[in-house]
């Protein structure tokens, strides 16, 4: 299973994104990111939703995010 990471600058959009993914049947967990991104502190979501689907869902529901990074395969 592929786990991808969505980096969000803001907790509001991170929670919204997490809830959107869950409502669409995906696993999604929010966590505070380590602050080592170019932009500094924020919140991220780990999810088993595919990268293309993440972009599609987030753009459809106008959820702002910074980046989507491939995570680990588990």
């Amino acid at each position, binding site marked *: 299973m592929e786990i991808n990471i969505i980096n969000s*600058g*803001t*907790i*509001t959009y991170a929670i*919204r994104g997490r809830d959107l993914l869950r409502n669409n049947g995906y696993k999604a967990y929010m966590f505070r990111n380590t602050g080592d991104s170019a*932009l*500094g*502190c*924020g919140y991220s979501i780990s999810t088993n939703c595919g990268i293309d689907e993440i972009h599609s869902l987030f753009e459809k529901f106008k959820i702002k995010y910074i980046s989507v990074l491939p995570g680990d395969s588990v």
Partner: protein
Amino acid sequence: MIYLDNAATTFPKPKNVITAINNCLKEYSANPGRSGHYLARRAAESVYNCRKKLAEFFGATEENVIFTQSCTASINTVLKGFLKQGDHVICSALEHNAVIRPLNKLKGLGIEYDVARVFPENTESTVKSFEALIKDNTKLIVCTHSSNVCGVILPIKELGQLAKMHKIKFAVDAAQTAGVIDINVTEMNIDYLCIAPHKGLYAPMGIGVLITADDSLDTLIEGGTGSLSKLPYQPDYIPDKFESGTLNLPGIVGISAGIDFVNSIGLNKIYKTEIDHVSHIFSSLCNNSQIKLYTNSIRMGYYSPVISFNIRNKSSDTVGEELGRYGIAVRTGLHCAPLAHQFLGTSNTGTVRVCPSVFTKRGEIDNLINRIKILSKT
């Protein structure tokens, strides 16, 4: 005490609001949206849940809900964040100082404004009055939903349509009506909705709400937002852009619980209960030659549950003091709304203002009426 000063702030607060705030302070009052530990995440979730509730309540989406220090702060954010030199604004003749004072400050910076006459119970005339003032450089209509002095409701749905038709932004000061009368920002074409949660939403003081999708507003305050920290600039998206510094978590939790309380009763029932009280005051006093009232009637849909009066040959302050001696709390004077008093012709006298809440009992209103009648004979 018979508390009838709910236009200033509602009192008492419901038990569920007090319990919710207490629990928050005891169990999870960490800084929301800053750290990653359990308490911070729990605090952040409760903030988000409040945004969701407010969004549902007012027909918006949760990221468009911004927490401020007060309704006045929300109004200042809109006026000073949106208007530029050379812009023209239209407001109503019933505005609170929360609108007029920033507009007068902005006048000094090259922004002009005009005051539209209000025709109580006459939607068409009121809307025409606003329309007649529209110019090429009119950028904003800002108005109160209802006067905090006399309860006159402005036709904000029709004014929203007017603004949209002319491609003008529309801001509403809903300090007196949020939680009493139904407001939907989408259906009413409201670009900026300013809310005082400590009134009709039964939340504590010290918190305000601004609902808007406009992330191009300039900020009044910049600072830490718990997001994009490496950037030395303010985030450019709502709500973070307008929420620098630590949020008032207990206040936000109070708003959540307040919305639950209002929803448990229902807006229509709250409005009807309160307007019935005010209507009873009006009908009991309107034929008393010693008492001056300032509206022709109290009709649902045209008035919010606020009523002002004076007793002939007595100052409003004296009447307020006398009522206070009998355990009845009202507000007297100009109510931070000199423009409204100009409209009513009471700039020199002020008025005695009465405003019930959902907790007010009919017996308390009868007590007030009897006391006013006795005072009018002395």
